[in-house]
């Protein structure tokens, strides 16, 4: 058993050491870049949609219950199923419109939808969590609605908002691998290829890189959130 694991480990090390795996389309630099670009683009897409919604329902209190409920249903939608549905739709879109990468489009859309729910709910929860006394004090000081939002609510909600972004990012990094099943790029390719060719070293290498990327994001956000949180506490005094 242990001997087997050591052999596997050695094979993975050899795989990482092989120069072939560092060049070309299937090389680590390219696949890693593809993966990171996919995750960054989807996160930007999700933030653009989710943060304004969260801020609006948090600040005004309007449509909050309805929105949070809809978003929670969105959480129930499996990404793999979503990609499977989006894939034929993306084909239709690409055939009609500009020639784009079908798998990329399907994965991107599925990842945006995956990332929206945690960001909306956490943005909303962060704003709702701001002390009402502070809000009234800000109003009393003559701050207008958008000034309260920018000067008080957003800074104080930032730690909770970022926790939502962290959850979304980690999920997107791990789930974006599924795009490879539909012929997309990214680190998922190694997993799909490794499985198809029964090349365990390749499979392991892909899994390790994805997990490492996700853990890196988790730790990085943790550090950022602690910084922001300390700042928020200081301003709270």
């Amino acid at each position, binding site marked *: 058993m242990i001997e087997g694991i050591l052999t596997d480990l050695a094979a993975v090390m050899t795989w990482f050491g092989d120069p072939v795996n560092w060049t070309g389309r299937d090389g680590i630099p390219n696949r890693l870049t593809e993966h990171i670009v996919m995750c960054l683009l989807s996160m930007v897409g999700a933030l653009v949609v989710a943060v304004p919604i969260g801020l609006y329902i948090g600040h005004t209190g309007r449509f909050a219950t309805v929105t949070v409920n809809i978003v929670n249903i969105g959480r129930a939608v499996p990404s*793999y*199923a*979503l990609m499977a549905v989006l894939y*034929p739709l993306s084909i239709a879109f690409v055939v009609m419109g500009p020639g784009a990468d079908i798998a990329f489009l399907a994965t991107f859309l599925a990842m945006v939808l995956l990332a929206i729910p945690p960001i909306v709910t956490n943005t909303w929860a962060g704003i709702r969590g701001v002390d009402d006394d502070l809000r009234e004090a800000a109003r009393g000081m003559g701050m207008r609605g958008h000034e309260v939002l920018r000067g008080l609510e957003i800074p104080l909600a930032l730690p909770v908002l970022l926790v939502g972004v962290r959850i979304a990012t980690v999920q997107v990094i791990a*789930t974006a691998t599924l795009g490879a*099943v539909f012929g997309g790029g990214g680190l998922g390719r190694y997993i799909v290829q490794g*499985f198809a060719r029964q090349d365990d070293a390749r*499979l392991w290498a892909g899994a390790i890189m*994805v*997990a490492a990327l996700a853990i890196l994001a988790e730790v990085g956000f943790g550090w950022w959130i602690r910084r922001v949180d300390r700042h928020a506490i200081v301003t709270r005094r």
Partner: protein
Amino acid sequence: MTDRPVIDWRWIGSHLDDLWDLTVEHIVLTVIAVGVGFVLSFGLALVILRWRPAYGPITAIAGIMYTIPSLALFALLVPITGLSTLTAEIALVSYTLLILVRTIVIGVDGVPVDAREAADGMGFTSRGRLLRVELPLALPVIVAGLRIATVTTIGLVTVSALIGQGGLGRLINDGLQRGFPTMTITGAVMSVLLAIVADVLFVLTLRRLTPWQHVRRSDP
């Protein structure tokens, strides 16, 4: 491009039996995963509640497992346990651990000190206090965790179709392989519906289990 419609309703009509069987398979895979995951998580949470230093290491390990892509975990287990239900379940169970352990511990931690002291004052042993006071009060948080775990698992079951399991995920895969969108879309839509139904059932169950949280206040 053929002029075949995107959704072939006749195919669905003539395969209702298959759809039902696959739905049952999907539910069975999910229930086993969440059930086993809950038993394991409960044990781990008890260890943490008794001995707090275990919290960090246990959640760190569960957290690392959570970051391994489902596709990779399924594929990595195949050489060891084959294209079997066991392979699917090992992976599915491991994804429930982080959510469930965390919510059980957070739920029990969130029990008000007053309730705990009252229980001590009434002469409960620490086990009695846990079973009859702390766990019931932690129930909303624990059920919320079960809800997330169940919905996530329903989604991950579809991925296990790639290793020959998968319930409704089989439809997604077969449809993709045969270029028959009706199958893919039916499988996807039904797994989404299954997840939504599970989600709603949890909300309703929680309402029944914790009637004290939904008392209508008649006094102003």
